[in-house]
């Protein structure tokens, strides 16, 4: 058998949302937008990113708790399939039905739950308030046909392995603290002795001291049971503690993957750098660097073209996917002759967006067409208007000035050596 436990290619999940109370228009939230993922046996992979970037959705997708929009996902794939994926060969429908989690029938997916489990983010809502702890943990066992006596004795074992005494069997969730609840959730996930567990922000709702307890517990369990884990968190320092490899996610896409040490020593993607710099370190002497991000995450309904990070990237340049509508406001600002004297005599009438990569400025009067390029270049440098980097050419004819932009291209994950992948045109 191979060493690869999970392989996903082109995973996508779009959520359909209604726009208004009465409107019929539907929009897609691109929660996960083309993710390739490989997880090896016995490995802990960390997944970090801001909230809303699609981490939870990806986790749920891998377990097929939600229906995918597109993509293929294999659990424990054979060498043959791996080879085919590697070479980009087509995989036949029959094979898909048999091996791809996304194409399997309902019963096969249910069978897979024995091997793949999840621990949810919020320990307060992930336990049914009307169930006793023992029944919560026994639930997966019962649903796979264990009788109650065996199930309860296994529950006792499980409780012990997550550091809780048998007296917890007959308690209700509301009698437990957050840390204890999260332990119960972990025990439930481990009940069927799975090989693979998704941990969705298992410590985000917990205090530092409780977080330390849970992290240590996970560490022990992992060694003991030889678990493979996908550890999701928005807190990169927590991920560093436990993960072998880290994937950084932004707006539904993976932007960087590397070994933990490597990513901290040599973060390549500007987003990873920003994320690292934003983390407050509990040490008054290390000052937070100020390359944190301006603005907020763009809406996943309409993510920016090209590199989706370009709206906030400090290094964005020509190729990063600027579109015409991002330039309009800036052009209007700088074409003002009171702002830039070189443009005296030019009176701007309107700006028309022809396509994503082309726009036309119409002037009422155009006396100094030659200075436009110079002004744009000057403003680009002086006021750091990065959108102007997207300009490929400027043509003046009559009273019109046509501006052409570079074709937006999406950066692909690229190996830069050392098993370090990054999706950025800089590398």
């Amino acid at each position, binding site marked *: 058998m191979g060493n690869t436990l999970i392989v996903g290619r082109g995973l996508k999940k779009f959520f359909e949302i209604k726009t208004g109370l009465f409107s019929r228009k539907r929009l897609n939230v691109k929660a996960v937008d083309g993710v390739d993922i490989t997880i090896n046996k016995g490995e802990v992979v960390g997944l970090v990113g801001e909230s809303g970037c699609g981490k939870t959705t990806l986790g*749920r997708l891998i*377990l097929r*708790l939600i229906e995918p929009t597109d993509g293929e996902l294999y659990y424990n794939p054979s060498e043959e399939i791996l080879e085919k994926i590697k070479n980009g060969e087509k995989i036949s429908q029959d094979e898909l039905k048999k091996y791809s989690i996304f194409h399997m029938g309902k019963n096969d997916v*249910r069978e897979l*739950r*024995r091997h793949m*489990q*999840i621990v*949810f*983010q*919020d320990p307060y*809502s*992930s*336990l*049914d*308030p*009307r169930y*006793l702890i*023992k029944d919560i943990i026994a*639930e*997966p066992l019962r*649903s*796979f046909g264990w009788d109650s006596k065996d199930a*309860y004795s296994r529950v006792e074992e499980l409780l012990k392995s997550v550091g809780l005494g048998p007296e917890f*069997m*007959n*308690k*209700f969730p*509301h*009698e437990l603290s957050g840390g204890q609840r999260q332990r119960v*959730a972990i025990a*439930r996930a481990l*009940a069927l002795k799975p090989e693979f567990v998704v941990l969705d922000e298992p410590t985000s709702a917990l205090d530092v001291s409780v977080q330390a307890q849970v992290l240590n517990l996970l560490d022990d369990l992992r060694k003991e049971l030889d678990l493979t884990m996908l550890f999701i968190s928005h807190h990169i320092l927590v991920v560093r503690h436990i993960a072998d490899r880290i994937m950084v996610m932004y707006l539904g896409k993976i932007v960087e993957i590397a070994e933990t040490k490597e990513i901290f020593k040599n973060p390549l993607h500007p987003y990873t750098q920003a994320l690292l710099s934003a983390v407050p370190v509990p040490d008054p002497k290390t000052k937070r660097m100020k390359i944190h991000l301006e603005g907020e995450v763009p809406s996943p309904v309409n993510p920016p073209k090209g590199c989706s990070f370009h709206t906030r990237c400090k290094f964005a340049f020509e190729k990063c996917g600027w579109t015409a509508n991002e330039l309009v406001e800036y052009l209007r600002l700088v074409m003002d002759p009171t702002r830039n004297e070189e443009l005296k005599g030019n009176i701007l009438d309107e700006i028309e967006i022809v396509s994503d990569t082309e726009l036309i400025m119409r002037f009422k009067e155009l006396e100094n067409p030659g200075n436009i390029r110079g002004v744009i270049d000057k403003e680009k440098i002086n006021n750091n208007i990065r959108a102007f980097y997207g300009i490929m050419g400027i043509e003046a004819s009559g009273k019109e000035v046509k501006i052409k932009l570079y074709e937006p291209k999406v950066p692909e994950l690229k190996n830069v050596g050392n098993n370090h992948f990054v999706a950025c045109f800089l590398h």
Partner: protein
Amino acid sequence: MFDKMSDSWKPRIENFKITMKILLKSPASAIGLIIVLVYFIIALLDQVDPYILGITTNVNTLIPNYVNTAPQPPSWLTNPWDFSLPFGTTYPGINLYDGIIKAIRIDIAFSLFVVVSGAIIGIVLGVFSAFYGGWFDEIIMRLTDIFFSIPYLVLVIALGVFLGRSLEILSIGLIILWWPIYARVVRGQALSIKEQTYVEAARASGVKNSRIIFRHILPNTMAPIFVQFSFDLATIVLALATLYFIGFAPSNSWLPELGFLSSIGYEYAIVGDWWTIVFPGFALMIFALGMNLLGDGLRDALDPRLRR
């Protein structure tokens, strides 16, 4: 084994105790609970053995006394130690004590039947329409809309006119009208429960849909159902009484019913025989009051925010 059983019941009993504690903390709901218990005990005793309550007959009709049809005042008015006719009699010579006790049983039984059947239909439809959504949900919801827009008196009267005026027809009419409330309440509740992580967690544990619906979603929708249930028990009794009072009684029956007794008494009360309406009227009112007080109390006691 027995030990284990009792262990797992302990926390449940504990939980129940907490609910009762919160319920009894407010005097209003404590009074409501006592009233409701008294009524139910009366109904139960009457069912088991009416003689315990000092009733003279055990037939299910009012027994007129054509020898002395005029209403007689309660016996203790003339002789304070005479309780042979505690509530007096009403036309035509009906012993009001007998009548009211029996009426309480019949009214409660009728109301329970209607509300329980309506609730079961509504709960099942509501929870399925919330869980599966889609066209099924759409149909159920439009149906409830239609039923909500019909005034219940009109529908019941219409049914009675076409199908005959019997208690069975009445109850069917009321059930048809009453399930949509439960469907709505359950659906609303179930929609939010469905999104709870523990439902997803159950799915991730390989639990089948039917079990998710009946063991996870349904039990968690029950709190507002209980509240609705207690309000409705009162409402149905009142509705039945209203129908009798306006004269829409099942034809030529002498069924003991509080509204019916009130409607007979009404004419005599005008001419001064106050007891003919006061006793059946109060019996009705206090029951409705008790049920409503209890419902309000339950709403608080079952509120998860108060249980931390």
